[in-house]
């Protein structure tokens, strides 16, 4: 057995860099945020028509989930828990996300105009993408996650989401001209294809424990 599988196979949770790697793969594949947790479906269905835009939105989501997962962990650890205002976390998290997205937009506009125009439309969309808020809420349910673990969890979830939307865009480009029953046009067909992709991802389950 390779060291990775040996460590994963044992009952004791892996530590150090290995644990981060396990979290990354688990979040991206076995616990894919879109296909098993159903988050970020709205923009997934709306944007996955073309490969190029899907890739753009995917990259933006990866970046924003990674950073906001870390930020929201710090907010949780050092602000809401000491002050005993956990019940306000929903409001605080969404404000953090919105503020971060706004900030990123301004910075990108300053630094690189081509990148700004490439990502431009997608950044505001991200504020209402439930995958981002979902990552922040789910990571607090995991036991014993620190700052690094949360950030890696955010990165893995973002990558998983990007993988799903890119797969979907590829398939949708292929089937665009196929004849389907009238009521199935658009959302119905996309949902069936997503279901089949989700079936494939069920095959990953049980590969890593975390």
């Amino acid at each position, binding site marked *: 057995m390779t060291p990775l599988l040996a460590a994963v196979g044992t009952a004791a949770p892996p530590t150090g860099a290995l644990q981060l790697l396990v979290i990354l793969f688990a979040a991206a594949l076995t616990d894919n945020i879109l296909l098993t947790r*159903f988050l970020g479906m709205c923009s997934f269905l709306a944007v996955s028509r073309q490969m190029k835009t899907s890739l753009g939105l995917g990259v933006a989501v990866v970046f924003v989930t990674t950073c906001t997962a870390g930020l929201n962990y710090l907010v949780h650890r050092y602000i809401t828990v000491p002050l005993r205002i956990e019940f306000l976390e929903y409001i605080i998290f969404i404000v953090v996300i919105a503020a971060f997205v706004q900030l990123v937009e301004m910075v990108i506009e300053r630094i690189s105009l081509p990148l700004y125009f490439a990502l431009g439309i997608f950044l505001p969309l991200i504020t209402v993408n*439930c995958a981002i*808020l979902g990552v922040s809420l789910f990571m607090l349910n995991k036991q014993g996650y620190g700052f690094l673990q949360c950030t890696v969890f955010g990165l893995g979830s973002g990558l998983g989401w990007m993988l799903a939307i890119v797969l979907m865009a590829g398939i949708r480009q292929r089937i665009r001209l196929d004849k389907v029953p*009238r*009521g199935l046009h658009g959302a119905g067909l996309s949902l*069936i294809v997503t279901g089949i992709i989700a079936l494939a991802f069920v095959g990953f389950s049980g590969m890593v424990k975390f």
Partner: protein
Amino acid sequence: MSWKQSPGGRAFLRNLWTENPVFRQVLGICSTLAVTNLLKNTLIMCLGLIFTAGLSSFTVSLLRRHTPRQVRMMVQVLVIAAYVIVVDITIRAFFPEIHKVIGPYVGLIITNCIIMGRCEAFAAQNPALPSLLDGVGAGLGYTFVLMSIAFVREILGFGTFFGMPLPARELWWHQWTIMVMPPGAFFMLALFTWAANSRAVVPEKQTP
């Protein structure tokens, strides 16, 4: 003027079927798929959504003359988040075991596009009472779809109805494991969308 002709009544009825938020406008799909394992969880989630949708439309409508255009999204999100916190605390207090299962999804009502959509499309331009009805109507349209899906998924996946076992299920019932798993949710919603769209779409011009 009868009740059905008033602006609020019209908005209310439209949201139930012809412009149903889930299968006509494809909004709020995330929670539609995630919580429809069991009827009980679904019902509680839906009540939370009806409450939030109605009252946040109402509040956004009351504030519509005092909100600058540039920050209206932020105001809407904050209003919605405030009501979601109320819902979350209520569920946590009265149904703690259900909260463990659907907890994060309750928080995600904030980013549920149905509520944002109704606030932006209707409440931002209309008086308070029609907006309240519009929000509740969208919530009920959502509830109708979710309960139908949860009904099928719970019976096929667990062999129960609202947690009660079906009569004599050892004799005839066989578990469809896929209905409990995520792909089952996708397939059920796809079938429902298909059926509903085939019925609801009177051959108007369909955009490809």
